[in-house]
């Protein structure tokens, strides 16, 4: 549909019957340049006053063709590109990709590498939730939590920088294990961070959890029932906030997650507040996992025997992991050459974003930004 047709289809009044004083709906373009659309998401809102009658998401402003790039690079060469999809959780992306290629090759990373991967991925989950909390609170108008969470995120990024030499687009893992071994003092630094972070989470909760404005703004906003979540394919904290105990780390453990004792926090009502609580609890659970993984970190090799030129046998594989935002899946078809025949990514943000319309309909404009915030989308991942 062309753009002008689209606007006209939003209005209930026939084009010929329009007068100067008709009371047709207001069509508001939120984005792609808007303070709270988390990047370049464009939401076309059809408004009756402040009430939202319908939405239409326009995506693709950040499309870089990551999947196509993957089909033109060797398996090892594509590894740094996956960091650039969900750039606030680059380590998780790398882990999913490496696991997929490892399954295709039929190798498994050594135990030490798996534990290192768990530590870094869980730290990354915390830092991704940091970004979510900061921006979500900022959307709802609390400007201070952003700086508090970025203070802790900085600590995580420093650990990443010391471990693998980059802060954001880490390229931390390689196919078959880890390129870098833990640096000296890694365990101590991670444990110190965990001990401090637990106190800092209390601080975020002091600022927000009981605050009446925060509760008013998030309770009963963007409600999704468990059935709706499943029908929409929502994963991650969205579905857990609606009371479905679904976490791939428990459902189909990968990378030694079965060794660790942790709980899956779930919500009851499936509203924005529950998703907030779920994510806060997830940060605490991630700290638990990290502490256990550091305690159980054993000596040993960090790289499995992988040929220098990776040439997996022909076949296809789908591997999904629990990224901070939901199920992150990689579908790779190999034709036996050094480059994948087909590469397909199932990004959690993209799938979760389609529940926006359902949550927003009938709410107010202010709820739209709260709901976009609670979805925790990263446009690099939505558009790929």
């Amino acid at each position, binding site marked *: 549909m062309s753009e002008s047709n689209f606007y006209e289809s939003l209005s209930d009044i026939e084009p010929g019957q329009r007068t100067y004083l008709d009371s047709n709906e207001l069509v508001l373009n939120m984005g792609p340049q808007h303070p709270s659309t988390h990047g370049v998401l464009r939401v076309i809102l059809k408004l009756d006053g402040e009430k939202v009658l319908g939405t239409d998401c326009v995506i693709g402003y950040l499309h870089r063709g990551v999947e196509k790039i993957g089909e033109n690079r060797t398996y090892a060469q594509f590894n740094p590109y996956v960091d650039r999809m969900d750039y606030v959780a680059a380590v998780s992306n790398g882990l999913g990709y490496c696991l997929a290629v490892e399954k295709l090759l039929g190798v498994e990373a050594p135990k030490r590498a798996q534990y290192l991967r768990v530590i870094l991925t869980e730290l990354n989950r915390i830092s991704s939730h940091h970004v979510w909390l900061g921006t979500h609170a900022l959307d*709802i108008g609390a*400007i201070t939590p952003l*700086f508090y969470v970025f203070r802790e995120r900085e600590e995580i990024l420093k650990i990443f920088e010391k471990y693998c030499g980059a802060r954001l687009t880490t390229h931390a893992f390689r196919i078959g294990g880890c390129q870098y071994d833990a640096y000296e003092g890694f365990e101590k630094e991670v444990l110190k961070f965990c001990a401090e972070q637990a106190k800092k989470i209390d601080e975020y909760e002091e600022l927000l959890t009981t605050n009446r404005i925060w509760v008013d*703004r998030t309770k009963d906003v963007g409600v999704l029932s468990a059935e709706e979540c499943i029908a929409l394919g929502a994963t991650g904290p969205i579905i857990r906030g609606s009371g479905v105990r679904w976490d791939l780390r428990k459902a189909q453990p990968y990378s030694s997650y079965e060794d660790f004792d942790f709980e899956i926090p779930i919500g009851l009502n499936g509203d924005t507040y529950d998703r907030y609580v779920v994510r806060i609890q997830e940060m605490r659970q991630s700290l638990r996992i990290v502490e256990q993984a550091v305690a159980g970190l054993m000596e040993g090799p960090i790289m499995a025997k992988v040929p220098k030129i990776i040439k997996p046998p022909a076949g296809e594989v789908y591997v999904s992991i629990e990224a901070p935002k939901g199920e992150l899946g990689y579908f790779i078809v190999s034709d036996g050459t050094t480059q994948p025949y087909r590469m397909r990514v199932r990004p959690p943000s993209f799938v979760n974003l389609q529940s926006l319309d359902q949550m927003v309909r009938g709410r107010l404009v*202010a709820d739209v930004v709260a709901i976009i915030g609670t979805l925790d989308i990263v446009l690099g991942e939505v558009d790929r």
Partner: protein
Amino acid sequence: MEPLTRYLSSNVTPGEAGDMLWITIYILIVFAGVSVAVICMNWLERKILAHMQIRLGPMRVGPHGLLQPIADAVKLLIKEDVIPAKADKLMFWFAPLIVVMTAFTLFLVVPFGRTHAVTDMNIGILFMLGASSLSVLGVIIGGWSSNSHYPLLGALRSSAQMVSYEIAMGLAIVAAVLMTSLQTGTGTLSMIGIVESQAAQQTWFAFQFFPLGFIALVIFSIAMVAETNRAPFDLPEAESELVAGFMTEYSGIRWSLFFLAEYASMMAVSSIAVTLWLGGWLRPFPNALGGHAWDVAFSLVPGIAFLGLAAMCLLGAIRMPKVGALRVQTVGLAGFGVVLGLVGLVMLLPGVRERVQDIFWFVAKASIFMYLYIWYRGTFPRYRFDQLMKVGWKVLLPIALAVLILTALVGVRQELYAVFAGVIR
């Protein structure tokens, strides 16, 4: 020399004395003072907010960013002045002027001291309320004339918000005005009269009929935040929802006029709160720490406060890292400290300190509210529009009504008691 002696011997405001020369001078002083205060407030807000957010805030323009507001003002003045092509140009040009004019008009009756007001109106507080509600006109015109969606939504929000919070605000004010009639039997609406009746009753109205006066102050201090469109009630300019609300299409000098008006009206409503509930220019603890000796001691406070600020500046200059790039800033900070110190010394002079202490106490009390504004902004999320209305109509309004009725009953009870006592006697 004659005007000066006339001024010094007068013990009423120039407006009451009908002294045109001094009225003009006062208006100019108030205008300049408020503008300077906006600049200071701008710097303070950035710094305090930054420190609440574990940042440093402006640090580069001048020592500790002291010249940042001036740099910003210059930038705004020389910036290209954009008027949207489809905007209503006359109205677009007119809206910030309305807002600024109303914000500054309020200061006509603000009593910084017994003689330190432009004039004393017998309907002072009504004038404040009436003039402050005019600013909503400017906001609506600004939002409408931009001919853009976000400003329109912002203007609609602000029209509903500012009107509905005025009611709770008005009821809280009436409760305070009722208290002025307690001893004399006749109340007053004059800003100076209200402060004088607090002096006569030897208590600030915040502590009269505790907790009634205090609740009224709390209601007012919530409603005034909504009235001035500040966080957590900043829906008309909610940056995460409406980009910048009614100011979205404004830039350069027009935008800075809105900015100026916002801070000026914040100060104006703070000074209403100070006048009505916190004893205006009266010094704190008049009863517990009464007597001539304490009077003198309290009159020294303004000078000492300025000397303290000077000491902070000089300490900061000493603590400044000894880097070549920062030499100019160090000298500047030290110079600023010396100037503040000289001002402090002048304020300690016997002739000056009696006249200045009124203003000092008034400003000090008002600055508590200004700090609260920043503190709110640093802490709270923003209300949604329907919740804002709910708070205004379903929470603040009933409480304000209850406080008003209870204040009236408690006040009458005392008088009834007096009547009964007379009958029995």
